[in-house]
């Protein structure tokens, strides 16, 4: 029911319709006049279908942590989330009816949010006796845009780690890259989802990088914006968790921080109402937003093999050397030159970014 619709009906008809609505809701004491006022005030919200496949539900629960606007505000005032298994009131076959109704009535109009990777083996992931991949194809076909939320949906993520037991694939490999926006992260920061949706609704599709991620979120290297960057530049490191130093929060690359290879705005926007992010608690980044996560980032607590540390080894690796050593990582999606860029540290950053841009193009 849109505002436009109401402009085309007479006030009398309108009140009659509203009376019907009130009756349908069992609101005998609610006057048609009162309903009409509320209805006229409410504009149509963009419809959303949120599907969960091979996932841990962590991107759903992460969404509940949305801060500004809050998840409540988003659900009540900004989006019409028709299908979302974790919180929808509907049950059983009713949920399927909601899904099919939305696809039909809102064809070309709804945003599909996909959480989780997609098993390609028959029977390895089913909703209402249908394989996830068939449900995905049906929902994606008529969606206005598809948001692959979290690293599992975007790139395969955790279940795609070797040996990929369920033979899972990312969303874009099932339905094609067209109209897919990847919002990786394990879990995805709720701000990334909400700001991307806002971008789509207010300004159209955001500019994406070669991995299908919005550049306004994933455009910068974590290492470059890290609150502990000064320690890195000065060659001050945590050598092992539990080091007895007081007062100074040293750089974590020697205990495995993957910030130099990871691109996201975590240092700027942080997590959970700004209360934390991985580096802030002294554990380091694990690279959860990158296409090659998690395989290329394990062992999580080992130092990046080719990251030269200022004031420590005194060496600066060049991109070719890094490329040779990290061949395995390259094969599963990480850009050699991106690694090289990080390895060169701040000074080599600009040139390396250009190289990365060339590679991506």
């Amino acid at each position, binding site marked *: 029911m849109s505002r436009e619709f109401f402009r085309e009906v007479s006030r009398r008809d309108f009140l009659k319709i509203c009376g019907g*609505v009130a009756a349908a*809701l069992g*609101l005998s004491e609610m006057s048609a006049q009162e309903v009409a006022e509320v*209805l006229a*005030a*409410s504009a149509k*919200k963009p419809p959303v279908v949120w599907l969960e496949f091979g*996932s841990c*539900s*962590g991107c759903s*629960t*992460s969404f*509940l*942590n949305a801060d500004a606007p*809050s*998840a*409540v505000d988003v659900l009540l*005032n900004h989006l019409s989330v*028709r299908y*979302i*298994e*974790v*919180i*929808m*009131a*509907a*049950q*059983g*076959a*009713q*949920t399927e*009816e*909601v899904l099919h109704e939305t696809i039909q009535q809102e064809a070309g109009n709804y945003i599909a949010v996909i959480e989780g990777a997609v*098993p390609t*083996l028959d*029977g390895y992931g*089913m*909703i209402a006796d249908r394989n996830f991949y068939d449900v995905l194809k049906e929902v994606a076909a008529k969606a206005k845009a598809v948001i692959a939320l979290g690293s599992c949906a975007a790139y395969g993520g*955790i*279940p795609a*780690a070797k040996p990929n*037991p*369920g033979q899972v694939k990312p969303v874009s490999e099932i339905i094609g890259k067209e109209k897919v926006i990847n919002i990786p992260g394990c*879990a995805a920061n709720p701000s990334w989802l909400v700001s991307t949706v806002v971008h789509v609704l207010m300004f159209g599709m955001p500019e994406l990088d070669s991995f299908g991620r919005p550049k306004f979120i994933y455009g910068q290297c974590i290492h470059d914006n890290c609150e502990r960057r000064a320690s890195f530049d000065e060659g001050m490191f945590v050598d092992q*968790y*539990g080091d007895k130093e*007081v007062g100074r*929060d040293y750089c974590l690359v020697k205990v495995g921080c993957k910030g130099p290879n990871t691109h996201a705005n975590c240092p700027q926007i942080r997590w*959970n109402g700004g*209360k*934390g992010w991985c580096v*802030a*608690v*002294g554990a380091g980044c*694990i690279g959860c937003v990158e296409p090659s996560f*998690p395989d290329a980032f*394990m*062992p*999580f*607590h080992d130092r990046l093999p080719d990251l030269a540390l200022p004031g420590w080894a005194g060496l600066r690796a060049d991109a070719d050397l890094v490329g040779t050593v990290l061949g395995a990582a390259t094969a599963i999606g990480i850009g050699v030159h991106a690694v090289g860029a990080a390895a060169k540290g701040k000074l080599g950053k600009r040139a390396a970014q250009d190289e990365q841009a060339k590679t991506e193009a």
Partner: protein
Amino acid sequence: MSQIITVDPVNRIEGHLKIQVEVENGKVVNAWTVGTAYRGLEQILRGRKAEDAVLISQRACGVCPIPYATAGSKAIEMAYGIEIPENARVLRNIIMGFQFICSHILHFYHLVALDYVDPAAVVHYTGNDPELLDLKSLVLSGDSAPFTPRWDHDFRLPTDINIAATKHYIEAVHMYQRAGEAIALLGGKFPHVVGIVAGGMTPKVTPTLVTDLIGYAKELKDFIDTKYVPDVLAVAPYYIDYGNIGVGPGNFLAFGSFEGPDRDPYNTILPRGVIMDGDINSVQEFDQSRIIEHVAYSYYEDGNPKHPGDGVTLPKYTGIPSDPRRGEKYSWLKAPRYNTKAMEVGPLARMLVRQDANLLDLAAKLKIGPSVLARIAARALEAQLIADNMLGMITELKPDGQVPCAQYKPTSGRGYGLDEAPRGAIGHWLEAEAGRITNYQMIIPTGWNASPRDITGQPGPYEIAMIGTEIKDVSRPIELTRIIRSYDPCMACAVHVVDLEKEKIAAKFTIG
């Protein structure tokens, strides 16, 4: 004449679940619980460094990742002979406390409440709470997804309770966020944390941290004391028949959590223990050699029922049975049994093992059995118990400005970590050689509760709880989904492959 009713998906849970029942004369005579998705995290862990299991295994569950991190860390610490610092023990209890609190709040308000509370009652709301007014206009505008449509044939609460509970539903989202913030102070972010590592914890213990934690603990305790527990008590009388619906197998298992300075799992606020055959006042010690896992009705290669660490298990999908009565394989879940019995795990099990006086008094007063209502009440009272203990835990911290983490060199060894997730007992078993995982094994809460039949045909706890239930409207069997949700299912956790080429790992351990 009997008929088969299917609910698929069972939503407002974590992960993918389908249930089927056979109904005869309005009564469930047979039931099947079907885990419909598979990911196989343990297979992924083989060959990795043991520490990676702490970060990977958490990803089994985005609702309760913390207990995976603690169980994984404990397994490594046992395997490598590491003793964690006192501040780390305390910080783990605190982060676990916030995890339980946020998970229990989420479960009651956002997963379960819509089965009992009618948020559409807000159309009668006349106050000025902005969020309730938003919801009111949403309902009136006819665009009230995702709160409609719904099964609305059995709402029984008066308008004022509906409105109050709906207001708390919204507040509970904010409380969930607040608990997430507290977890982020210790873990970096939530869900999925980096701050729990083998050897201890990574955040420095500072006076600022202690102060912040006190603030969060106090705020959440207030919500539990003034909203969550009172709401459960207010709703219960209207659904008092559910005090005898959904009674499970009567066997309860708890591994225990929140260890004190003596680190004795039998001497904590949530102790370890076992209750068998409905004898709820008789708590026994737990003996892990009595665990057997079955695959007779699970999508894995057949084999004799085995100890979880014993033998090889391979996925083998054989399709959806055309009729569940035909006795074919039907679920991705395996069927763990303790002492040959199907076991219930979770808040009710823990509170019974603890012999919690508040719960036992309430059950006696309301005349309820180990049912749907008992599970919901046990969860609320457990949240309150933990909240009551949070300030005490926080003041155990010594704010010395240090990172509470023991330093060690990875070696070879075997270890296990037993803990409690909000939804029940969780155990990780690890075997490592030169720092690398040669075997990893998880037995997690919903694996017990949602298990299918075993080789003797004994149904799992959900199935037992559903059998005997009277269904008022077979097209909308809300009795069944109320039963299932009372357990707080976490299907993604439950479905994992046990891949043990190196056999007999867990069998080598003796667990007190």
